[in-house]
């Protein structure tokens, strides 16, 4: 059964790659073929967002529901993967910005918030490596991750509003209208779902690996 799910995931991700280059049309107002990178950039940004929210929720569960090591491992693995997808989203976004805006980096509000977010979660990992005792590490890093949840709304919802942005409107915008061609929406949605599934699959592997490693070091 698990094997079947992995194959299904492989099929969906392959379909997204094929769809991004051959099925979806080019977006209007974008230079050349530059809009195709969005089929990877948007799902990656989405997954890093999901990962950070998930890390915050697992940290909350750890702190306020019995301090189980399982929740701590899940939060740490989610941060690691969120950081990976976040870096990939930043790189793909920078490549796209070079083509469309003429520079890799120009402190657009989205770029500002993603970089602060990445700094935050890199700091989370730095904190984990700076505490030797396992219980204290879990407790302190979970508290820090929840503090991140309290600050995150300012990065994602408020800053993009007070600063001028060139970033294209999100697929689902304030007016509730979808302004992207329907075949593009299909690829974006399947891509986001596929990447989310990919995240949870790797996350599961990472948690199991860490659980085994913890058990080994406890022996």
């Amino acid at each position: 059964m698990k094997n079947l799910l992995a194959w299904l995931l492989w099929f969906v991700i392959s379909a997204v790659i094929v769809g991004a280059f051959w099925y979806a049309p080019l977006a209007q107002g974008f230079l050349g073929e530059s809009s195709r990178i969005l089929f990877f950039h948007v799902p990656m940004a989405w997954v890093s967002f999901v990962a950070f929210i998930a890390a915050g929720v697992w940290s909350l569960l750890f702190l306020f529901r019995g301090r189980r090591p399982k929740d701590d491992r899940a939060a740490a693995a989610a941060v690691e993967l969120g950081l990976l997808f976040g870096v990939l989203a930043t790189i793909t976004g920078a490549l796209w910005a070079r083509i469309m805006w003429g520079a890799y980096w120009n402190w657009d509000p989205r770029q500002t918030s993603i970089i602060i977010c990445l700094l935050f979660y890199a700091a989370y990992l730095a904190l984990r490596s700076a505490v030797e005792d396992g219980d204290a590490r879990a407790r302190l890093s979970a508290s820090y991750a929840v503090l991140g949840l309290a600050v995150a709304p300012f990065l994602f919802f408020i800053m993009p509003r007070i600063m001028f942005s060139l970033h294209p409107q999100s697929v689902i915008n304030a007016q509730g209208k979808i302004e992207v061609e329907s075949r593009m929406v299909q690829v974006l949605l399947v891509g986001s779902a596929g990447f989310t599934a990919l995240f949870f699959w790797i996350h599961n592997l990472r948690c199991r690996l860490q659980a085994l490693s913890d058990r080994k070091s406890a022996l």
Partner: protein
Amino acid sequence: MRNASTWAAEATSVFVKEWRCEFRTRYALNTLALFAFTTLVVVSVSLGPLGVSRAHGTAVLPVLLWVILLFSVAAGLPRSFVQEEETGTAMALRLAATPSALFCGKLAYGLTLVLALEAMLTPVYVAMTNLKVVSPGLLAGVLAAGGYGLAAGSTLVAAIIAQARSKGTLFSVLAFPVLLPLLLLSVELTRLAVAGSPPGVALPQLLLYDASVTVAGLMLFPAVWNP
């Protein structure tokens, strides 16, 4: 169950204790003030004898003011928790006060320290860089609200890093991403105060940031503090 008056008494005694310890050595005050003034001199000298033009000043000088404040706070504030762990007084403090009272006492100490620093630094900064502030009232409000946010965020992060290794560098690494939204809002508001424009939505947002960091601090501090 402790009642409100014991809680207030505990918070006040923590606050009084902090300042009494501070006046014994004047470590934090001296570090903060010296650090701030050294940086101020560096900034002022680097800008040159003529300073920056009015147009550039509105854009640049508020940023430099908040950068000086941020780094001064990072140099002095973590001390209040690091010292408890280093001298071994943390355990006694855990027995003597409830976590929320302790957090509020420490926060009040941090806040008074930051406000004292701002009161000393800002007039000198304004004079040395020849910055003309059109709405001084708004500037004072921003300094108070921004200073509170700096103190609240730093107090919780200081409690976290006090229990880790490599405390000094770790504080900057952990605190800056948390404080950056506050810094961006404060810089924006300081620019508006210098230009004399109305504060707009940034002021409620700054107050909202202060409120959410305070709530998060009160909620998380017991978990951070009690092993």
